[in-house]
């Protein structure tokens, strides 16, 4: 009996963020394992209901919900301080204003392949986000098995 308890506690301690072995795993766990490994997702990332805005194409497809690590682009970094973890997440915005203003700040050549802004409601079973109280951009770590294409609707073209 005591041995079983000890083993269970040890398992909980070593599984990091997923302290409950029955919690969903992340959809892009391979990217996390390859590129980020340590402290990813951040320990203070949370499950919550959150309005989210994302750059997409019309019509919305799975390709609009790929993390940067899967876009075939070199990782964007200037310093070792740069968080590799963010690359394994989906970039989203907590308001349409922050989404639009960020788009305005991207240089013309690199305004990506996105053409529209879509809005969706992220709920707890979808994944975790960081920072816990977003004010503008936030990283979203999607759980495995979640399909975000049906949760987002296009609201306006990117100007």
């Amino acid at each position: 009996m005591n041995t079983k308890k000890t083993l269970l506690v040890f398992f909980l301690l070593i599984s990091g963020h997923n302290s409950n072995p029955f919690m969903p795993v992340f959809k892009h766990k391979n990217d996390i394992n390859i590129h980020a490994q340590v402290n990813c997702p951040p320990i203070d990332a949370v499950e919550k209901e959150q309005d989210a805005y994302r750059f997409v194409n019309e019509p919305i497809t799975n390709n609009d919900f790929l993390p940067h690590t899967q876009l075939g682009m070199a990782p964007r970094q200037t310093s070792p301080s740069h968080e590799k973890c963010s690359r394994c997440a989906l970039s989203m915005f907590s308001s349409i204003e922050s989404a639009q203003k960020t788009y305005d700040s991207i240089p013309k050549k690199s305004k990506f392949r996105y053409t529209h802004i879509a809005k969706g409601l992220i709920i707890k079973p979808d994944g975790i986000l960081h920072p816990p109280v977003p004010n503008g951009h936030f990283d979203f770590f999607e759980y495995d098995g979640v399909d975000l294409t049906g949760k987002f609707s296009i609201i306006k073209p990117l100007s």
Partner: protein
Amino acid sequence: MIQLPSYKLIDWPFKDYTYIRDLIEFEGPILVHYMNEKSHALYYWVEGDSSVNRWLCFGVTLSELYDYLKQNISLYDLISNKEREAFYITDIDNELKYGNFQMLNGYSIPEEYMPDKDSYYISELPDFYDDLFRHLDKDSYLEFMKMREICLEIKPHKNSPHGDIVSMTDSIDFLNGINNSYKNFVAFKFYNTYKDRYSDAKALLKATNKIIEASELRVVGAQQHSFQISVATDRIIELDPQKEYNDFSEGIINQYHDDVLSIDLNSEETASLLIEKYDDETRNKIFQPLIRIINNTNCDLSIIDKRKNKRKSFSKINPVIKSKILQKTPRPQPPDDLKKVFYTITLELNENTDLTTISKKEIQQSTLFSKVSQAAQQEIQKFNFDSFTVIFKRPILLDYVSNDNGSFSISFPPLNIEVTGTARNNAFEKVMDAFESLIQRDYLSKVPQKKENKAFFEQHVSEIIFNQNI
């Protein structure tokens, strides 16, 4: 990658800079802040492929960084304003290796590398930046202030015997006028912005006085001859530690520029809009000092946009429009038969005709033409005061304006005299009082207060006859 009109570099100019934070993020950093002990730089991601990402890097002053992060200027503005400065390019690979160092001039940055014009910073500033901006050193402080300056100039009128040199009196009038106009504008704007937050009128007044004090214009630049000054307002951190009024104080000088200095004061439409926007007292407090400067016959006022190398000169304000802008609230319109206009009639008569005995029929028969106007001029050869009479070498001209509310305004610009009376006689009495006062103060006194006035009287007065009974 775009081929650039650049120069190859061996070394990286920002190698001793330290990463501070990402200012814009999307699928990784877009704009990154770096700094060393004394200087700041921004790294702006411009393009990338499967092997490298290219960064456009440039130095920024603390005040430029402040203006961008406080949303006073966009990222596009920040980069465009540096077209004469050097920018640096580096390509960084997957292993974080910096390479392909290049330098290019600001004006050579390709359009594809530029953000949109509306690229304002959107996020909240972390506390780190409040502390950073709080400790601006003296040089940066001046530079910070100069980022938000308004440049004004008064230049002597082209016929001035003093060339480009402005008198002390006109300079003082100019500074006082702008300062008073601006402070009254701040008071008006603050009241309208915050009045609903205060249930206590005393507290609102106290806050208003505090903001006026804190928003006072500071001279951040001056130029000799043709008196040119640059003025700006400071942040009010010391007086406003909770930064409650930060946004207000930072934007108020731009509002003054847009709402007061940039409008066409010689336009009837503008006058109507001002009457709608401001109550009488506020309108007078804001615009009377400014109009006084503009209408000063000794000088011409201009506002200069140094960044765009543009100048706007202020034309003298038409007396009718000026009276409209500075008028008090019209009382109920007087009946039509009490409204006054000026008829100027030109008669053809024999030289020795006695006008006091001329008949109505003779007037009708000899009238060549007539003109109706709200403005007219009166020739004055002499003034009879109680204690003396002043006779002019040649008649001087008083400008009369009949106002819509039945009042009369009389002005004599060479001496900056402007009066308004409920009737013509009343206004004329006020003009006489003004002349008497100026003659005693500036012509008869051993120590004239205004030398320009003394010079005018010396030039135009033929004689002064003192009343022997006094």
